[in-house]
């Protein structure tokens, strides 16, 4: 049956299940398999060292130096970290703006996506069309989304303020107003985000809930709300956890939309952390300080993710785990 004669001896002496036996020393076949495995994953492994781990270590090193790309890095110890926390007002401004942004967009994004998923989980005619309508904004390039919303939100001749005018409300200056710039950006981000991946993940979670649970609750005379709280929410809590982790991380990274529409303004009202980092590293070419900002950012994201992982056992329900 062997397709080629030269392979036959190898195939014959190969103990197919030998890797289950857990023998400490590897057989020739196991070594071959391991070698082939490493070979196959080598593109990723090399890429990990060259494009991820190496750069991370490099930026850790730069963060302790004065470095402007043109000259060699000069070691300055903790200077950048001390400067960021004690003297750089814009650092704190950007931290505050970013936290406000997360507090505003993450809960709204998750609740909105869940609401949309529940709505789109109904059996209605034309459902494919509705789902597509909700999803399309998510695919729009962020620059295009920003430009079209700048036009909609144009204070004097924009369609939104014109509609508000029609019902007797004098619309704000949106992206040009200190109070409204961030809510306006949040609105754009909800438009692009609510019907996106978060909603689809919820939708998949909702569809995985067995009908029998709801039928049993019906027999017990449960109300719609009781079913939602006692069946739907626990059953989709893993999806919610997944969305929360990724949502928080993504919200910390907000950049493109603000970069295109407000450039952090007006009066630093939308000056997010990533804008500060970009400004320091790629406008002022202060790579050392930019790297310090990047590492502060990375540690914050990591700590928050670990915290969420630790908190999840209090509220995430995994079927079969209990």
């Amino acid at each position, binding site marked *: *049956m062997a*397709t080629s004669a030269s*392979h036959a001896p*190898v*195939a014959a002496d190969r103990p197919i299940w030998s890797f289950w036996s857990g023998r400490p020393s590897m057989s020739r076949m*196991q070594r071959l*398999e391991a*070698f082939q*495995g*490493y070979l*196959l994953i080598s*593109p*990723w492994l090399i890429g990990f060292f*060259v*494009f*991820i781990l*190496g*750069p991370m270590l490099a*930026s850790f090193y*730069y963060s302790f130096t004065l470095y402007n790309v043109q000259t060699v890095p000069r070691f300055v110890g903790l200077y950048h970290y001390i400067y960021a926390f004690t003297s750089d007002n814009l650092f704190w401004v950007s931290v505050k703006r970013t936290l406000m942004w997360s507090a505003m967009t993450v809960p709204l994004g998750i609740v909105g996506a869940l609401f949309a998923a529940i*709505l789109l989980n109904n059996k209605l005619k034309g459902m494919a*069309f*509705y789902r597509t*309508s909700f*999803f399309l*904004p998510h*695919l*729009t*390039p*962020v*620059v*295009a*989304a920003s430009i*079209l*919303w700048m*036009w*909609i939100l144009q204070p004097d001749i924009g*369609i939104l303020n*014109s509609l508000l005018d029609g019902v007797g409300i004098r619309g704000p200056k949106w992206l040009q107003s200190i109070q409204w710039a961030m809510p306006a950006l949040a609105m754009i981000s909800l438009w692009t985000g609510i019907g996106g*991946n978060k909603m*689809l*993940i919820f*939708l*998949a*979670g909702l569809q995985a809930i067995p009908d029998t649970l709801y039928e049993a609750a019906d027999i*017990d*005379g449960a109300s719609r709300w009781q079913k939602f709280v006692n069946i739907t929410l626990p059953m989709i809590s*893993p*999806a919610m956890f*997944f969305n929360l982790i990724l949502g928080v*991380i993504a919200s910390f*990274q907000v950049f493109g939309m603000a*970069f*295109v529409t407000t450039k952090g303004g007006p009066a630093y009202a939308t000056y997010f952390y*990533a804008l500060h980092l970009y400004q320091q*590293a790629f406008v002022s070419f202060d790579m050392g300080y*930019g*790297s310090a900002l990047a590492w502060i950012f*990375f540690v914050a*994201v990591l700590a928050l993710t670990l915290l969420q992982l630790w908190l999840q056992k209090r509220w995430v329900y995994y079927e079969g785990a209990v």
Partner: protein
Amino acid sequence: MTTVTRSLSTNQPAPAARKWVGRAGMYLLTIALSAMFLFPFFWTVSTSLKKAVELIAYPPTLLPQQLMWENYTRIWNVGMSISFAQFFLNSTIVTGLALIGQVLTAFLVAYGFARFRFPGRNFLFALLLSTMILPPHVTIIPLFVLFRQFHWIDTFLPLIVPSFFGGGAFTIFLIRQFIMTLPRELDEAALIDGASRISILWHIILPNAGPVLATAAIFGFIGHWNQFLEPLIFLNSARKYTVPLGLWFLRQQEGVAGLPEDNLLMAASVLATLPIVIVFFIAQKYFVQGIAMSGLKG
């Protein structure tokens, strides 16, 4: 089935009229929200076909008084030294090459993780997954320094070459999850028959992997086409700009010229979004499958 169980329960069955009203409300809400999500698209297309003088009309006209299709040809050849056609060509080159590298190498890496036993495999896989939460800002500064040393700044290479190294955690994870669902017995039977590991990949895994590779390619396409931060940092000259960067560039230019050319910007936005929308409509089902697969097991 709920009506059947309800009649068995002690509760009063919901009156038919109330049910009908609830259903009508559901339709109304869904349609209204769909319209809200679609309206900005409609407004962009409508504006893109207006004459410049019509833009400043207040209240704005819902539909163009006269369809200005030439707005699209005007933005396609902006004049100056650069044109939107050039941005499109650049994005096509970058996206096309990056996509080939991404799907090809992610497939190999995913096969390695799914079907081979080697020391440290689980650790390496966990490491791979953890890179998914790594913000790009952490590595972008040293990458800039690295690519500068390679003399790659202001070339397409920084946007293409990294994709040939595994294609990113999400793509590998997606394909690996899929390969895990294929029965191992097929592989093992082929091994007994003396097939090599690479011929198993070619003759057994690949013929089944069409849908997941399509999913990976679609996500990859959208990711590369929409990419903004990396081109912004690695490209300098306008004639090398990709579509999103070119769009941003045109927006800057508009401010300089001081003309209300928002209709042209809207036409450019439509052109920038169109490839994505077309790909989405061709391959809708792969989207939902892909997200469901990665999300549920994530």
